[in-house]
């Protein structure tokens, strides 16, 4: 074996090949196929889709369900992403410092993340049950009559956000690790300058963690756009009044329930566009704040 140092980059690429092939076949190709199928009349049942031009686009522009679906998805992202980020970052910073038994606090916070999402959704059906559910009983302790959670559009949306505020383990672990990498001497210097815990948080921790936080926000936006399928499917099935008919639910309905495969492909493109716009907006905002240099 000769030329070791020259071959090294090539070797790295070779190790990436299986993943690259999987991404190409299972992500990139289907994403491109969406574009092709969106202009056909494919139902998902037959094997011979025909080209129908802009028929699906015309249907899209005149679809009140799609508007409901877009509104549900956007509201959900606007609520769920900040809540999940705040929980993950706040808890990670609160629990990062070593202390006796510290790991078990972190274990408790991580536990809901390892609960299978169907089980978590079924559990929340119980927790949110207006008659039996622990949440209304808890509100009852404070003299509040409770809500009919999943029967009302507003509380149904909040209920899904509430459920998704628990499985935050991935971001939690990432922030724990990132916090650990920060230089302790900075904190010693800040403490000597009379900078209290909140000053340290605002002047040191958050600015230093900014790149990680931006990455997490982007990742969580994408994740939030997709993981709301299971809660919506199990808890509400898109009801009440389409309040939780998130885009993934609508795509699922069209592509797999109503034989509207081609139309589903077009809505998938809408979902990708929405993802792209939100993330671009996020990055532009971040640039304006100059947290990333």
């Amino acid at each position: 074996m000769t030329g070791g140092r020259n071959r090294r980059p090539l070797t790295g690429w070779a190790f990436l090949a299986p993943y690259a092939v999987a991404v190409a076949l299972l992500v990139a190709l289907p994403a491109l196929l969406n574009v092709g199928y969106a202009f056909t009349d494919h139902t998902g049942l037959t094997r011979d889709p025909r080209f129908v031009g802009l028929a699906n686009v015309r249907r899209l522009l005149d679809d009140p369900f799609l508007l409901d679906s877009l509104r549900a998805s956007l509201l959900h992202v606007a609520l769920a992403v900040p809540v999940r980020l705040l929980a993950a970052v706040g808890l990670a910073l609160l629990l990062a410092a070593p202390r006796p038994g510290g790991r078990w606090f972190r274990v408790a916070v991580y536990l809901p993340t390892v609960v299978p999402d169907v089980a978590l959704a079924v559990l929340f059906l119980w927790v949110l049950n207006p008659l039996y559910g622990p949440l209304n009983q808890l509100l009852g302790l404070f003299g509040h009559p409770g809500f009919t959670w999943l029967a009302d559009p507003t509380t149904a949306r909040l209920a899904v956000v509430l459920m998704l505020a628990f499985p935050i383990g991935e971001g939690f672990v990432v922030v724990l690790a990132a916090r650990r990498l920060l230089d302790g001497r900075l904190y010693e210097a800040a403490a000597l300058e009379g900078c209290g815990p909140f000053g340290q948080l605002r002047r040191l921790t958050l600015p230093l963690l900014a790149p990680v936080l931006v990455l997490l926000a982007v990742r969580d936006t994408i994740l939030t756009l997709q993981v709301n399928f299971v809660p919506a499917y199990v808890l509400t099935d898109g009801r009440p009044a389409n309040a939780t008919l998130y885009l993934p639910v609508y795509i699922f309905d069209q592509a797999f329930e109503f034989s509207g495969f081609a139309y589903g492909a077009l809505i998938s493109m809408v979902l990708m566009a929405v993802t792209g716009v939100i993330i671009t907006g996020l990055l532009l905002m971040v640039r304006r704040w100059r947290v990333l240099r």
Partner: protein
Amino acid sequence: MIRGPGGHRFGDVRLSGRATIPRIIGRFVVPALFAALFAAPLWFMVVGSLRPAGLPPPRTLEVLPPEPTLAAYARLPELIPLFRYLANSALVVALAVPLTVAVASLTGFGLRLLTPTARRRVVLGLLAVLLVPVTAVWATRFELFRLAGVVDTYLPLLAPAALAGSPFLVLLYAWSFGGVPDSQLWAARLEGAGWLTVWRRVALPQVRPATLAVAVLAFTFHWANFIDPLLYLQSGDRYTYPLGLQFLRLLNPTDWPLLMAGSVVATVPCVLVFLLAQRVLLNDDPLAALRSGGRR
């Protein structure tokens, strides 16, 4: 009060000697409250599963079950083919977890070998690909698998495994392999080992804790996978357990002890497996634990 080994890195040097009340509240009481909040849903799951069937609604919050009984668990196998579903899930997990670990570790090692510039480019490319939400490629991915004639087999359920489960797992391996010194890799190369041997014999043994963590996270992911079985499995005798749980919910939408018992059965394997890996993942110093055996 005992201070952790890395205490100085958190800048509390000046306060270390004093155990004042606000300090205890900040360090223990507030974290304990949040820990209780996050453990509460699981507690309600267990308590709910132990309620006798047909009891009237509780008048106040039940922190302990009134007359605990395991009756709901005994009724589970009578209503659904419980053991068949669990065996199917176990089979999927047994195939998918090794594949996930293999893809994640190969990719992580590949990232380790790239030059820093190339690595940054790959990570950016990766992020661009990940902008595509999985839900946006459901329909067309299904079409590909349908054309390949493998719908209603377990093959499509391995698709997420071929994608390393989540980029987070690739990242875990990339972090961990970063701790394997170049000199060792080159020493092995000079002795004539191929790169695959270097990966298997030199790099992987040094990141066993990372492998444990990735395997555990892959287990929880594949065990819990609901969407792919929902799309691809059609014959009832091939259902995995999450589908079975959904089936149970449709059959008995208001039998809460039964549904909670079903949820506990779905959750227990994940919790047990996770407890194996918490020492690594949630260590005071997770990055060191991933590389060093996690014994701090």
